[in-house]
């Protein structure tokens, strides 16, 4: 076992980093300051651009963290100090008193019911109230209560005036009023900071009246208002209870604003405001007005532009105006917005609710911690990040990911987190750590053809179940059910002693099936499966039935009906158990090397990252040299030289003993599946066969060739990339010249309806470079919307300070470009200037076009067919999930990074490439590929090889064997969704663990027994 890594922050970044490390076999201490992990994402309602339910996609990852044997969660804990150095840190963690024994509490919530003290609910942004003893949110992990000692009556009163209700009601005696904060020291090899952000304090913009006008809310409050599990149960209301008819969203509140010392762009607000508007329309179909007041709509991410266009089509009103003030009608509490548009015209608009799109700001406590720990932060407090080392901090061995290093959205946060895991793994892989005991291997009993002998355990859960359901009667009823050999009712089925009791009963009564009727299998099934495993029974012989969350808790006033329901459910579970079969997890051998396709910045970074973790890598590049686009670039936005960096990187790649570089090489065939791929590579006359376990697609994308603005027809017209080379080699050509740049050339147009993301920053960077060299150069940048997101905004600001002119144009009135009649070396650019309302003409020496980034459609399509992975309508590769699986395909073992995924800047490419390496390493690190037991199975005598299963399987896990003429399941890829099974007409495919017999038996038991 290697040395553990500490992850600070249990939001999506920390969760992802922890899971990646644990999957690589590295122990993790996950430290979270709140009583539950989940972070900001748990507070969000939906996520853009897919409108996915945030909880739905986050909760499974939270449970994975809780269930992983290598992850130890320290909730309600804070990092106090970091001592030592990389490879040998001592982290001092303060475990705050939660006044509850985490081991004893089973999350029954009875204490919450009896606590008399109401407190503003921070999780719901103070919109409603919770109790002083509380759980952060319903799906919290750990599922354990905490007492807020600021408000608890018992803790805050003298000893003669005891409240103590929670301690009295607690059936597990888990309340510990005497608990105190405790420092613990954790020995770790690396530390990942993933502490996230605060939102801008909207009170600092008094002109918007936040805090005094009750119907002005922040976007985070609005997320909770929209949320189905929020204070209003998902019914959008104003805080005064009225359903809003006109809502305004104000952008850049605390972003791009020098007045409040927040010059940077918060990157996510444009999209979340759009999302909030779109979802609001879904909630209130009759809403009159949804207006977004903005400066530039920054829809720069993958598929964001389409979302923007759709939002416009759905009638979301986009108003390019700055709101100067909000006034409130003191009777109706409606609001009046005073706004100024581009031409300086003032307007007044009335709304009944205003949502402030507040920016992302660093957490003051984290800034302090960084100061103590010697980690450099920028002037805003974000952890200092280098373009070429976006995940490293200034303290070696301490890594940082997520919004901590600057504003970013969830997918970027996720791949940075994976990247941080990758770098941490490199650090600790050879350091010995504590031995973590492996679960004891008990030989599995062969139940062969034994007739089912079912044991049923019905749980009281204190009074949680027994208070409503007549548990004794239900248990008595179960005794009469077929094949039931033993029944007992237990106070707490999940208690350690009961688990031992169940194990004893399995032995004593020779049980070969077990049913537990208690709470939800979503949290407790693994626990009981473990009891079976330890008793030598296959864990799939366990069946769980939920008579608490879905019965006693929701039918409190109908005890008789609830008891009847519980009996029905137990009967159904027994019927299912009758058909339960022991399922085998297959262990398949695998290859521990990786194939990286594409030798640009992305491919080289991920190859090197994997090699440094000790894996063999084949790096295949179709060009004769490594480097790709980055070779053509001059400097990064922050001024780092690409040439130097790429030289060093290329050298490291060539020098690394684990990396085999194949240039001028082409992939001609890919066979196999995760762990066992065989790829055929053509290199000149040779054909090479490579065996490898994973694939990383890093084929990049290219700057497109413009077909307008005289490109290719006049030597003074060039693209930004060409300009970079010119600056590098012939910079004097530009001295004293008049330069015009046009943005969005070929982007955000019908042929490429997406934003190319990098061009605004690239144009600004090049303009600054020229201006700094010679201030007499005159530069005008014609743009549709400046999308210098995040910290790039600072360069936009700088360019303006240096005198670069920025003029906006509309897509239906594009600049007109002609060769000057008098001087054919010059180019006339004519455009409409909105501020002064006139058409202007510039006689330019150079015209620079910010050409779209485009995917190589043909070659991507070819590769996508070979790998059986999808590409999107723009020709870029399509990841498994836009939010939470940004560097992998749905097909196991295949990953992607860099511009193959979507256009992005170099720092993002590097982070994503390291992220892909981490995800790939999580497979390579394992000794074997272990398949799940609940996978599809084919009856070859029934299969007619129609191939429908193959065409619908989301994981390419089933395919018709052309020789055998039957469908064959690849258990290594199957995720057990059962779609094939429900679709197969002859019933040849069945899903083990949820098979037709088990499901039909439940129906039979319910209605026919």
């Amino acid at each position: 076992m290697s040395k553990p890594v500490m992850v600070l922050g249990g939001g999506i970044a920390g969760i992802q980093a922890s899971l990646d490390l644990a999957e690589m076999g590295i122990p993790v201490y996950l430290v979270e300051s709140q009583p539950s992990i989940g972070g900001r994402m748990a507070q969000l309602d939906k996520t853009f651009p897919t409108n996915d339910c945030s909880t739905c996609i986050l909760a499974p990852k939270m449970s994975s963290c809780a269930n992983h044997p290598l992850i130890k969660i320290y909730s309600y804990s804070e990092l106090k100090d970091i001592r030592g150095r990389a490879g040998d840190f001592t982290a001092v963690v303060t475990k705050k008193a939660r006044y509850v024994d985490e081991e004893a509490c089973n999350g029954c919530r009875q204490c919450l019911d009896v606590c008399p003290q109401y407190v503003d609910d921070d999780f719901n942004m103070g919109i409603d109230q919770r109790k002083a003893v509380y759980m952060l949110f319903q799906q919290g992990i750990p599922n354990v209560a905490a007492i807020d000692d600021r408000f608890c009556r018992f803790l805050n009163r003298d000893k003669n005036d005891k409240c103590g209700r929670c301690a009295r009601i607690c059936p597990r005696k888990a309340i510990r009023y005497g608990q105190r904060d405790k420092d613990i020291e954790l020995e770790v090899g690396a530390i990942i900071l993933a502490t996230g952000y605060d939102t801008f304090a909207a009170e600092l913009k008094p002109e918007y009246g936040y805090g005094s006008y009750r119907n002005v809310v922040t976007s985070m409050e609005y997320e909770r208002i929209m949320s189905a599990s929020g204070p209003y149960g998902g019914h959008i209301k104003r805080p005064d209870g009225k359903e809003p008819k006109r809502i305004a969203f104000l952008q850049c509140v605390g972003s791009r604003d020098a007045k409040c010392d927040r010059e940077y762009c918060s990157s996510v607000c444009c999209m979340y405001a759009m999302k909030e508007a779109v979802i609001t329309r879904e909630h209130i179909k009759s809403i009159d007005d949804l207006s977004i007041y903005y400066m530039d709509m920054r829809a720069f991410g993958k598929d964001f532009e389409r979302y923007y266009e759709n939002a416009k089509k759905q009638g979301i009103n986009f108003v390019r105006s700055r709101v100067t003030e909000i006034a409130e009608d003191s009777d109706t509490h409606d609001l009046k917005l005073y706004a100024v548009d581009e031409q300086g015209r003032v307007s007044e608009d009335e709304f009944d609710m205003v949502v402030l799109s507040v920016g992302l700001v660093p957490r003051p406590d984290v800034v302090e911690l960084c100061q103590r720990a010697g980690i450099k932060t920028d002037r805003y407090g974000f952890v200092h990040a280098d373009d070429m080392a976006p995940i490293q901090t200034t303290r070696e061995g301490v890594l940082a990911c997520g919004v901590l290093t600057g504003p970013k959205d969830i997918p970027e946060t996720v791949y940075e987190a994976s990247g941080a895991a990758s770098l941490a793994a490199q650090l600790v892989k050879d350091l010995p750590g504590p031995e973590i005991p492996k679960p004891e291997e008990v030989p599995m009993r062969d139940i062969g053809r034994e007739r089912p002998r079912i044991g049923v355990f019905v749980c009281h859960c204190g009074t949680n179940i027994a208070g409503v359901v007549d548990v004794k009667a239900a248990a008595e009823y179960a005794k009469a059910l077929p094949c039931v050999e033993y029944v007992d009712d237990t106070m707490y089925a999940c208690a350690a002693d009961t688990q031992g009791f169940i194990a004893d009963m399995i032995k004593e009564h020779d049980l070969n099936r077990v049913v537990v009727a208690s709470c939800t299998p979503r949290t407790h099934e693994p626990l009981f499966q473990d009891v079976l495993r330890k008793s030598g029974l296959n864990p799939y012989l366990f069946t769980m039935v939920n008579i608490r969350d879905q019965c006693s808790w929701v039918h409190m006033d109908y005890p008789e009906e609830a008891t009847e329901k519980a009996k029905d459910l137990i009967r159904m579970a027994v019927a299912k158990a009758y058909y339960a079969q022991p399922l085998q997890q297959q262990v398949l051998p695998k290859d521990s090397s990786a194939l990286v396709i594409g030798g640009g910045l992305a491919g080289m970074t991920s190859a090197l990252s994997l090699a440094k973790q000790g894996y063999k890598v084949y790096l295949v590049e179709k060009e004769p040299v490594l480097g790709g686009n980055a070779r053509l670039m001059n400097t990064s936005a922050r001024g780092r030289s690409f040439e130097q960096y790429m030289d060093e990187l290329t050298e490291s790649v060539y020098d690394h003993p684990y990396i085999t570089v194949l240039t001028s090489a082409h992939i001609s065939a890919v066979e196999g599946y995760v762990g066992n791929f065989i790829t055929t590579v053509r290199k000149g006359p040779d054909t090479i066969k490579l065996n490898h376990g994973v694939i990383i697609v890093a084929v990049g994308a290219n700057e497109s060739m413009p077909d307008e603005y005289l490109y290719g027809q006049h030597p003074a017209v060039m693209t930004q990339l060409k300009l970079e080379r010119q600056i590098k080699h012939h910079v004097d050509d530009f001295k004293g010249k008049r330069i015009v740049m046009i943005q969005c050339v070929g982007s955000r147009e019908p042929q490429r309806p997406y934003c190319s993301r990098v061009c605004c920053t690239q144009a600004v960077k090049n303009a600054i470079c020229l201006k700094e060299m010679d201030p007499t150069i005159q530069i005008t940048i014609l743009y549709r919307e400046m999308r210098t997101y995040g910290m790039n905004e600072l360069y936009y600001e700088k360019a303006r300070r240096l005198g670069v002119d920025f003029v906006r144009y509309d897509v239906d009135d594009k600049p007109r470009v002609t060769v000057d009649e008098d001087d054919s070396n010059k180019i006339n650019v004519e455009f409409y200037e909105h501020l002064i309302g006139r058409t202007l003409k510039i006689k330019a020496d150079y015209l620079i076009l910010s050409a779209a980034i485009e995917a190589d459609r043909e070659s991507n399509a070819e590769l996508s067919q070979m790998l059986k992975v999808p590409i999107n309508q723009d020709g870029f590769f399509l990841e498994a999930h836009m939010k939470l699986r940004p560097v992998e395909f749905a097909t196991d073992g295949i990953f992607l990074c860099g511009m193959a995924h979507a256009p992005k800047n170099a720092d993002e490419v590097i982070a994503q490439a390291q992220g892909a390496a981490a995800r790939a390493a999580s497979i390579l690190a394992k000794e074997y590929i272990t398949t799940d037991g609940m996978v599809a199975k084919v009856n070859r005598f029934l299969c007619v090889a129609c191939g429908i299963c193959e065409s619908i399987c989301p994981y390419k896990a089933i395919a018709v064997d052309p020789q055998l003429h039957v469908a064959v399941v690849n258990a290594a890829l199957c995720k057990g969704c059962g779609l094939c099974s429900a679709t197969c007409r002859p019933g040849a495919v069945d899903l083990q663990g949820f098979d037709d017999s088990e499901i039909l038996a439940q129906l039979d038991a319910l209605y026919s027994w």
Partner: protein
Amino acid sequence: MNWEQQQQKMRDIASELLTNGKVDMIIGYEQASVNGKAAPAFITSPEEIQTLVWNDKCENMLAKYALRYKGKQIAIVAKACDARAIVGLMVEHQFPREQIVIIGMVCPGMTDERGRIYESCQVCRHHNPPVYDHFVGDAMEEGEYKLSPTMAKIDAMTPDERWAYFTSQMKKCIRCYSCRQACYLCYCNKCFVDRNQPRWVARTTDLSDNIYYHLGRIMHTAGRCVQCGACERVCPMDLKIWYLAQKVSDDCKELYDYDAGLMLDEKPALADYRLEDSQKAFVD
């Protein structure tokens, strides 16, 4: 081109295919010995070519027979519906395109003993075979959607009347499975009704079991059926069942713009999806 001209051209093509050894067998139609109908013919030598016929009695769905000769090189005399059926079976990998020569027959519709055009043919929209190697006949205008007389009747009924009508048919079923045998889509090795583990449906002629069988079968053919009408024509008890298949096909057309058997690279309607598909079956 009239029936006879089409027949002659079809025979010429068939003769050429067999003589030059391009196929091992022609599946077509010959005169049946009774009731003036055409019967399936399986011709392997050029001498037998003259027994091949083409007329308005060639109602049998020949795609079903093609399934028997998987792996052989065959040519098939295919009405538009047979051709669509063949395409559907190719989509389901039952045979590769190269193994079947499709002699596509333009078909104005088939008639019963009394010369009345079959209901399925009355409302047929596809008279021209969509995929073929040889095209026999003058291309006809593709039809507009027509409501069949049975469906017009059902549409006008209340739910109670619909149920009464439906059960009046289902009661008659003797579970002889002729409809299944005639259907080219029913090529499973073992039908769900014959399974024991699990037992999907009892093998009785209980009304409910009959209904289960027919609805189950319709769900299995949903999005794949070309509405040839064979199921109903072969029924010895004269069950009206084709309208069920027609209803499902109409839904697939209306909701998913899908017509079975028109394209070799199109997935069946229920094996496909769009994010913006109809939500009408779902509560708000």
